[in-house]
């Protein structure tokens, strides 16, 4: 009599496990579709080209940062300095804009690269925990940015540079196009390259990866550097769209938005898995949530609480992974 009972138990257990796993893998897509349907019915003027355009332009900088964050989280790390790196990039733009937008952008990216490499050095070579190592730059980076900019907001007038944030290419805003291309590139990097696979292996079981002779330190430094460069790209695009260099406000709390998007997108904080498409949808979901609430005239404070609820839900679903 006990045997059939146990059998049913196991069956229910596996079914629950399967359902949980399905939700972990696809929850973010379902949520995005559900939110779109909700808005299609209940929100006026939502399904318009103009609105989608606005949403995507707003989401692009977050996505670019989140892509780097997903890689870092894949190694069981975290990068809290991304917002500060964006501010650094913003502060550097006006210094070199006189010599042409290309040089200005290049220098901003070099700043991101340096900051990222510094983080990577602290984490991989010195062995400081990622959360602490990158906290240093979260605080110091923005300070440095303010020193560089002398604490001032600087209006930018270079038309070529401003075009980056306002113009279209192939019918799409340039920043959105860049974000999309980067997402494809990062997906390729994670799934198709030695670097990507080593990154995932290190995140899943660092001890085993070390004993397998993988270049653990090199990969870690590479991941943080890449994350820094992506944050700088995001800072450049956001500055261009704003039309001004504003190191005090640029990228403020960006690290939290990026981590949220990554986690909501199904990348576990425990490392060993990087979900690029999930991250893209995680960013879109959070953007849609905010847009929906704004369109229904709910204050930002409510939006924040709903975001919190979504994070808790995402972490709750991810909790039962095996």
């Amino acid at each position, binding site marked *: 009599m006990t045997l059939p009972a146990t059998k049913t138990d196991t069956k229910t257990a596996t079914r629950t496990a399967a359902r949980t796993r399905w939700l972990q893998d696809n929850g973010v897509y379902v949520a995005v579709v559900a939110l779109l349907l909700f808005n299609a019915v209940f929100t006026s003027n939502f399904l318009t080209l103009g609105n989608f355009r606005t949403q995507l332009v707003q989401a692009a900088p977050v996505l670019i940062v989140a892509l780097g964050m997903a890689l870092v989280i894949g190694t069981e790390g975290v990068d809290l300095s991304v917002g500060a790196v964006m501010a650094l990039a913003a502060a550097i733009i006006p210094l070199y804009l006189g010599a042409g937008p290309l040089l200005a952008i290049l220098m901003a990216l070099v700043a991101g690269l340096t900051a990222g490499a510094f983080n990577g050095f602290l984490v991989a070579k010195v062995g400081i925990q990622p959360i602490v190592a990158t906290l240093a730059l979260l605080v110091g980076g923005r300070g440095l940015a303010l020193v560089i900019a002398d604490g001032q907001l600087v209006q930018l007038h270079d038309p070529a540079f401003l075009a980056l944030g306002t113009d279209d290419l192939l019918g799409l805003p340039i920043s959105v196009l860049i974000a999309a291309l980067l997402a494809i590139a990062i997906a390729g990097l994670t799934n198709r390259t030695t670097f990507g*696979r*080593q990154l995932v292996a290190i995140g899943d079981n660092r001890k*085993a990866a070390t004993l397998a002779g993988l270049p653990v330190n090199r990969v870690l430094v590479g991941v943080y550097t890449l994350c820094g460069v992506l944050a700088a790209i995001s800072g450049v695009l956001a500055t261009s769209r704003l039309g001004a260099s504003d190191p005090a406000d640029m990228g403020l709390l960006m690290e939290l938005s990026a981590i949220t998007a990554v986690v909501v997108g199904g990348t576990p904080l425990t490392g060993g898995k990087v979900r690029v498409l999930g991250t893209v949808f995680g960013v879109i979901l959070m953007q849609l949530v905010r847009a929906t609430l704004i369109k229904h005239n709910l204050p930002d404070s409510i939006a924040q609480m709903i975001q919190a609820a979504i994070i808790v839900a995402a972490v709750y679903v991810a909790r039962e992974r095996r």
Partner: protein
Amino acid sequence: MPTETSAGPVIEVAGVTKTFAGVRALDDVDFALKRGEIHALVGENGAGKSTLIKVLTGIHTPDGGRVTRNGQISTIYQEVNLVPLMSVAANLFLGREPRTRFGLIDRTRRDADAAELLRGYGITADVTSPLGTLAVGEQQMVALARAVEADADVVIMDEPTSSLEPREVETLLEVVRKLHQEGITIIYVSHRMDELYRICDTVTVLRDGRNVHSGPLEELPRIELVSLMLGRSVGEIEKHGTTAFGEDHHADTRPVLEARGLTSTPRINGVDVSIRPGEVVGLAGLLGSGRTETAKAIIGALPLDHGTVFVAGKPVPRNVKAATRAGISMLAEDRKTEGIIPNLSVRENIVLAALPRLSRFGVISRSKQDRIVDTFVKRLRIKVSSPEQKVAELSGGNQQKVLLARWLCTEPRILLLDEPTRGIDVGAKAEVQALIDELAREGLAVLLISSELDELLDGADRLVVLRDGEVAGELEGAQLTREHVLKAIAAEVMDDAASHQNRHQNSHQNSR
């Protein structure tokens, strides 16, 4: 040993069984701890010691059987579980601090009490300094003092001396004796034969989750104790004699691997190992004798004080990457934490170490991967539904084969195998053993570590016996018998006179 075993047992365990994820950690174990005795609990890795301790202390609930406790139990783990950043005195009285009239902690009294108390344990360190600043041995003593002060009737000491200096060991043993005189019952887990025989009254030997022997220690010759710990299982005896495993098939060539004077105090001390192509060299010794450490030192995963590893006569820099490039591969002892990458597929686990070779300009080539994975899945007969199956879903034996395949992909010249057949079923075990033999025949130099003596005797051409981190002897040819190995392992303790010319001339333990 004088023991007044007045009342009944303090702890009694009858027919206890405990299973973890299908693996039987304890199998119908009986265990009785008499009041006032020092009871040695011994057994190799995975024999069930930790599980039994956790059942005794109530951390694990047994699946079956009965546990009776008549006293307050306190466990002192190998890794001291105190609060390193708090002061010594605070640690000592954590949770039961002396109070002032106002209910606040009376620091002055606490510190004075602590200092006096610790003096009795031979510790004169400043009790207001953080515990973490003390030497490991002293920390252990604080843990011990704390346990005793908390009115424990039973103190369980799990490998208390494994990281201590010889002088600290002496102090610890003194304290243990003192506690014994005060009537405290002690369970002493250790693999150091001389310590056991110096202080313990009774011994319980666990093997494969079973109690294979319980009785007075004095009546048990040391060699027999070792034999009981390493003993063979019934299945193995039947197989023995029918295998043509391990005949002398290595050529008389120069060694491809030479490790000289590997030293990493206090784990290993001056270990030499050399292996010729096609040779299987076994590392024998008890748990904690430095087997795994030797292998890790060879692959560059253990920081060394001295010693050099040569591959084909050339010194290898001390890091895993360089060692791997030189052709050394190591199958780690702990499959779960040091071997598999659980969330990746069988394919990705196999190609992991060889990734750079299987890609072009950093972009992986699936066709190359699929080809090599297919070859190894067939050759090692790995049972998978598809190479894309998650490696965590495989059985232990198949996971082990996946790891073996990972190393074979890198085309190594030297293969270090740390307990390659632990925790895998009998069928898979025989397959893995046959595979090792086959690989050696193809010219690979193999270092085989095993807790099972018979696996070593059957599989190895030559045995290096380790004891307390030093080479206690090398055996080959006709010397490859059970008796010789056991003698080499137990030698020091069998014959005290001989031990003087033997090793350890500079060790304090023997000068006594």
